[in-house]
């Protein structure tokens, strides 16, 4: 979920922007010029994948896949997500300029966390990798939901109920993302294992 312009307090906006700058700097440092086409084309594919609407009962939820992005890119996921969010703000006016930092942290911090938290599990063959892939997709969404809630609550106590609803709304997305990430992981492992080499590095 994107937080809109004009909602968060200056302190939260500044904090988010600061963290996003640091994360982006680390990501850019780890990405050499030769990797730019690979990262950019992958990030374009992720952008398009987020246009897929998955039916859950009566509503359609769009895919986020930030867990998978972390899995494939590690720290480089931060600039890739920043660019994707920037393009969403430009093309659809979703999110925005002043909240770009906060929204980047909301999506990218869980991606990087999941990369380090689950890559050990994903390296192992059989069931552990399957469990790891599901956990990676689900945890990334859960953490994103919690970060949205945190950004809202630190803006003002008045947002407490809104924040609770936001976290609740993330629970179905979490399960769907877990399942989808799991199937994508198994598919890539079978079809193009070299795409997953980041987790073995």
């Amino acid at each position: 979920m994107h937080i809109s312009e004009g909602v968060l307090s200056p302190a939260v906006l500044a904090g988010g922007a600061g963290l996003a700058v640091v994360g982006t700097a680390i990501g850019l440092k780890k990405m050499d010029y030769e990797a730019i086409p690979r990262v950019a084309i992958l990030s374009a594919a992720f952008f398009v994948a987020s246009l897929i609407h998955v039916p859950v009962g009566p509503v359609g939820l769009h895919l986020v896949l930030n867990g998978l992005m972390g899995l494939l890119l590690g720290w480089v996921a931060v600039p890739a997500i920043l660019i994707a969010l920037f393009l969403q703000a430009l093309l659809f006016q979703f999110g925005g300029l002043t909240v770009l930092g906060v929204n980047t942290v909301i999506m990218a911090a869980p991606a990087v966390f999941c990369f380090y938290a689950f890559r050990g599990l994903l390296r192992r063959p059989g069931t552990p990798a399957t469990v790891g892939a599901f956990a990676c997709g689900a945890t990334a969404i859960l953490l994103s939901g919690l970060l949205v809630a945190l950004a809202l609550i630190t803006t003002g106590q008045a947002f407490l109920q809104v924040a609770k609803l936001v976290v609740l709304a993330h629970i179905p997305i979490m399960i769907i993302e877990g399942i989808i990430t799991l199937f994508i992981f198994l598919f890539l492992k079978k079809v193009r294992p070299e795409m997953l080499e980041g987790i073995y590095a």
Partner: protein
Amino acid sequence: MSAIQEPFAEGASAAHRLDPRAKVVVAALFAALLAVAQTYAVVLAGLALALIWLVLARLPLKKVVARLLVVNSFIFFLWLVLPLTYPGQVVWRLGPLAATREGLVYTGLITLKSNAIIIALIALIATIPVITLGQALQTLRLPDKLCHLLLFTYRYLHVFEQEFQRLVQAMKIRGFKPGTNLHTYRSYAYLAAMLLVHSYDRADRVFQAMLCRGFRGTFYSLRTFSWRRQDGFFLALSLPALVALAYLEWGFPAFLRG
């Protein structure tokens, strides 16, 4: 039809013809200022300023309104919850629900702020084609790698959208009907995975093609930005307006009061 478009980028209005660098700087300052503003007077004045820019851009009104409605979904959600949960004096009751005056005032402020910023961004930033914007950001000294990443990502968005449509069509031809079941989720996962695999292969080919053409880590742009008199006017009118907004919000800074 493609979902990824730049509906506002084309045009020959005054706002379209301004130097993108000037527009980026003014829009960024405006957005930052309004995001920090806490008073109705400043936010309303900001909204007026944004509307002036929107008039200058002469965009199709229907499209702008339609876009604003979609973008306000988070704000609608806030209206459903915030007035009912904000502590303060109760002004309206419906069964167990009670809206407070402070809640309504606060949610109203957020709504105006949010829309003022979005309107300004539509008028000033969405009127720049993304490619031009990438080059403008580069001349504004953003990291090279980040600008390249932006340009490259944008370049391949359309390619993968077409790829995506092709795959969806192939699924439909084979009688795929989405529903709430594991088969649907698996099919969509394979669809996304196939997109990623195609992107990986294409990235390889693109990079090899770049090496063949002597790529050495820099892009050379044939485009040069030229500063014209209108850009000077735009800055000369916009920057004082922003200063006035800041003055309205905070008054004179201490060191100027004397």
